[in-house]
C-alpha cells in the first residue's frame, strides 16, 4: 500500500475482537512496534479506567441525557424526568447529589419495571441498555444500611 495518512483511510464505525491495533511496547527501554488484537487490548487494561466526559447536572425536570456516562441529579422539589432509549450495551450512571424532593425517573423502555425513585441524597444507580427490553438497573446503592438506594417501581 502506498503511504497514506490515517485520516485518508476509510472509516470503521465499530471494531471486532479480532481487529488489530498498533502499539509500541517497552517504550522506556527498547521501543518495539507490535500489533495487538482489540480483545487483548480491552481484556488486560493495564491501568485504571476513567471517563473524561463532563458529567451532566440535571436539575428537577431536566432529562438525563444519553450521551454522557454520568448524570448528577439535583432536585429543588419533587420531580419527574424521563430517560430516552440507549444503544445495546450502553452504561448510564446516575448519582442523586442534592435532595430537595424525590426524583422519579421513567425510562422510555425499562426492563422489569417502569420507574426509579431517588429519595435520598447519595442514592445511585448503574443502568445498562440491554436491547429491546430497555434499560436494566444492574446496580443500586445508597447511604445508610446495606440495601439502601433508589427504589424500582
Amino acid at each position: 500500500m502506498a503511504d497514506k495518512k490515517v485520516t485518508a483511510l476509510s472509516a470503521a464505525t465499530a471494531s471486532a475482537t479480532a481487529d488489530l491495533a498498533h502499539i509500541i511496547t517497552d517504550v522506556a527501554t527498547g521501543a518495539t512496534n507490535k500489533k495487538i488484537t482489540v480483545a487483548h487490548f480491552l481484556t488486560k487494561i493495564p491501568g485504571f479506567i476513567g471517563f473524561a466526559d463532563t458529567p451532566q447536572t440535571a436539575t428537577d425536570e431536566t432529562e438525563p441525557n444519553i450521551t454522557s456516562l454520568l448524570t448528577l441529579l439535583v432536585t429543588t422539589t419533587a420531580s419527574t424526568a424521563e430517560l430516552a432509549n440507549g444503544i445495546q450495551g450502553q452504561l448510564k450512571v446516575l448519582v442523586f447529589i442534592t435532595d430537595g424532593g424525590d426524583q422519579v425517573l421513567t425510562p422510555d423502555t425499562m426492563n422489569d419495571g417502569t420507574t426509579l425513585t431517588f429519595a435520598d441524597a447519595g442514592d445511585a444507580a448503574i443502568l445498562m441498555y440491554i436491547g429491546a427490553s430497555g434499560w436494566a438497573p444492574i446496580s443500586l446503592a445508597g447511604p445508610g444500611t446495606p440495601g439502601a438506594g433508589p427504589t424500582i417501581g
Partner: protein
Amino acid sequence: MADKKITALAAATSTTTADIAHLVTGVATNPTNKKITVANFWNKIPGFIGLLGLETKTGAGAISVTVTLTNLISEGVIANQIANGIQGQLKVIVFITDGGTATLTPATMNDGTTLAFADAGDAAMLMYIGASGWAVISQAGPGTPGAGPTVG
C-alpha cells in the same frame, strides 16, 4: 510529513471523542487499514473488559488510586483510606478476608464519610464524580439481597 518513528511523535496524554486511531479490520479474511474515532471505539466495545492490575491490601492504610481493583484483607479491625481520584475514575474494592471490620474513609466522599466492610464478600464500586468526591455507585455482599458494605 517525513517518515518518523511513532516513538518520536509528540505525546497525547488524553483523547477526545473525535480523535482517530488506526485499526486493521477483517484480519482473517481481508485485512484492511482503517481509521476509527475514539468515540466509535469506546461506544461499541466488541468484547468484555478486563483489568490487568490488582492490589492486594492486607491491614490498615491507604489503598491504591492507580489500580482499579483492590482485594482487601483484614487481620483485626482496621482503618483504610483512599485519596482523591480524577473525574470519572472507577474504583472496585472487594473484602476477601474478614478478620475484623475494615472501615474505608475516602479523602472526599459524596454523601457520606465511610464505607464499613463487615463481611467477607462485601464489595463496592466507587466513581469519582468531581468536587463531591467518591460516590458509591454499587454495593454488594453475600447473603440476603441488599447486603454489602455500610455507607456511614
